[in-house]
């Protein structure tokens, strides 16, 4: 009996210490996860707030392109120039959220205007809440990219509706040095990696102008008719949009080769984006049904209630199919 009395406190102690170590390890794990989100948060901000220049490679499928980037934040605004270094060098200038693209096509250079698009390394939103809902983050091994020490991160989807990502973040400056997108079979769909990178310590903006080719004619691209949409669908509603995806834009636009306007909705989970097009079927255009996968881009089209529904996005095939089937027509 005395023996049991003596043993009891010892076993209790063991249980308590076990519980304690379990709790601290859970706590430590939670802290480590939070630290990794901090690293990703820093990468999201550093891409906008730092001034840097370098060359990175974009690779998708069998194609690979070197791109020269110059990015500057001068305290008041953000300026960037991306030059695709190939036979027909394209220059992309961004100032704040506005993009101006100089795109050589045959004898012309077509000037295109865009708004609110994210260019590498600024591919992460500064608010990571939406990403946290659909992805989990964990630390990888320390690595080196472009001669710099980097922290590797695994951003894995919590479901099968999106691809997974690997990020390499500069250990010193927090800048994203490499980004890889993989499918569920762990095959690389897209990779963007800095080959050389350096910080700039100037606020001179001499570089922020296009290289003008006097032999070419500069023309604005064909204006795409876009009508702001109040977002209230008239003849249809959405039910069962893929989890984690939020509607970020809605417009009525003319699509090349279509005589009738098309309703265009854009969805995002913070990283991946999907477009949904809804248009009334017209007599001249053959209805289209089917699905396709090219690289990481999935395509799905179906016909319902006299409407053509089309979904395109950098997501798995199941996601585009689910979004197309989320459109219900009011009877």
């Amino acid at each position, binding site marked *: 009996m005395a023996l049991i009395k003596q043993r009891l406190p010892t076993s209790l102690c063991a249980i308590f210490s076990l519980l304690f170590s379990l709790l601290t390890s859970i706590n430590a794990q939670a802290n480590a996860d939070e630290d990794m989100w901090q690293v990703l948060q820093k990468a999201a901000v550093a891409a906008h707030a730092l001034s840097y220049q370098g060359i990175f490679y974009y690779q998708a499928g069998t194609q690979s392109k070197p791109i020269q980037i110059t990015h500057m934040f001068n305290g008041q605004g953000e300026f960037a120039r991306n030059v695709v270094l190939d036979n027909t060098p394209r220059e992309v200038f961004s100032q704040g959220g506005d993009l101006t693209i*100089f795109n050589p096509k045959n004898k012309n250079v077509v*000037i295109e205007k865009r708004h609110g698009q994210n*260019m590498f390394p600024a591919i992460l939103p500064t608010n990571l809440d939406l990403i946290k809902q659909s992805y989990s983050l964990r630390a990888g091994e320390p690595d080196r990219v472009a001669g710099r020490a980097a922290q590797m991160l695994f951003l894995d989807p919590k479901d099968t509706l999106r691809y997974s990502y690997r990020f390499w973040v500069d250990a010193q400056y927090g800048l994203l040095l490499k980004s890889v997108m993989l499918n569920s079979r762990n095959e690389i769909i897209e990779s963007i990696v800095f080959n050389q990178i350096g910080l700039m310590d100037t606020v001179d903006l001499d570089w922020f102008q296009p290289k003008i080719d006097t032999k070419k004619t500069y023309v*604005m691209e064909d204006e795409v008719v876009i009508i702001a949409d109040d977002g209230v669908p008239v003849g249809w509603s959405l039910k069962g949009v893929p989890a984690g995806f939020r509607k970020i*834009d809605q417009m009525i636009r003319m699509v*090349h080769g279509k005589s009738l306007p098309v309703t265009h909705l854009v969805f995002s989970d913070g*990283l991946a984006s999907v*477009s949904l097009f809804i248009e009334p079927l017209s007599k001249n255009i053959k209805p289209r049904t089917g699905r396709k996968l090219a690289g990481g881009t999935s395509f799905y089209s179906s016909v319902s209630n006299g409407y053509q529904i089309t979904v395109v996005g950098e997501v798995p095939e199941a996601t585009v199919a689910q979004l197309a089937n989320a459109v219900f027509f009011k009877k």
Partner: protein
Amino acid sequence: MNEQISALLDDEIALEDAAHIINAMLKNKDAAQAWSQYNLIGDAMRGNAVLSQQFKQNLMQKIQIEPTVLSPNTALVDQISHVKHANKLPTSWAIAASFAAVMVVGFMLLNQQTHNNNELAPMEVAQADVSKGVAADEGIPTEYLNAHQASAPSASAYYIQTVSY
């Protein structure tokens, strides 16, 4: 010559010293073209509104999309005219507005004249593209891919141009 035109645009040459450049632009077609191209590039970079070549067609298309109201609500018309009187703009605004209207009409006429001869050509190209898009069974239809890439937040499409018209 082009460098001097560029310098004039950048205010690096005083207007009074630029007589020879302006003369050259009046006589030399290439110099005049360089002037208009540099202005177009500058406007695009600064984010100034630039009228595209398709401005007229697109405007007409937009007007067509607008619903036609056959019987305006009289109560609403009264309300609108009341609001109009309440917020009546100074006369100078009306003059400016009619001047702007004349400018737009003038531009449209000019555009029509210059594009009358080749107006059919782009339409034919557009039709050919569509039939190709429907018949081609391998890739993703370019018209939707282009629209997606133009509006989606991820912009890697600029690095590799998978599609082009």
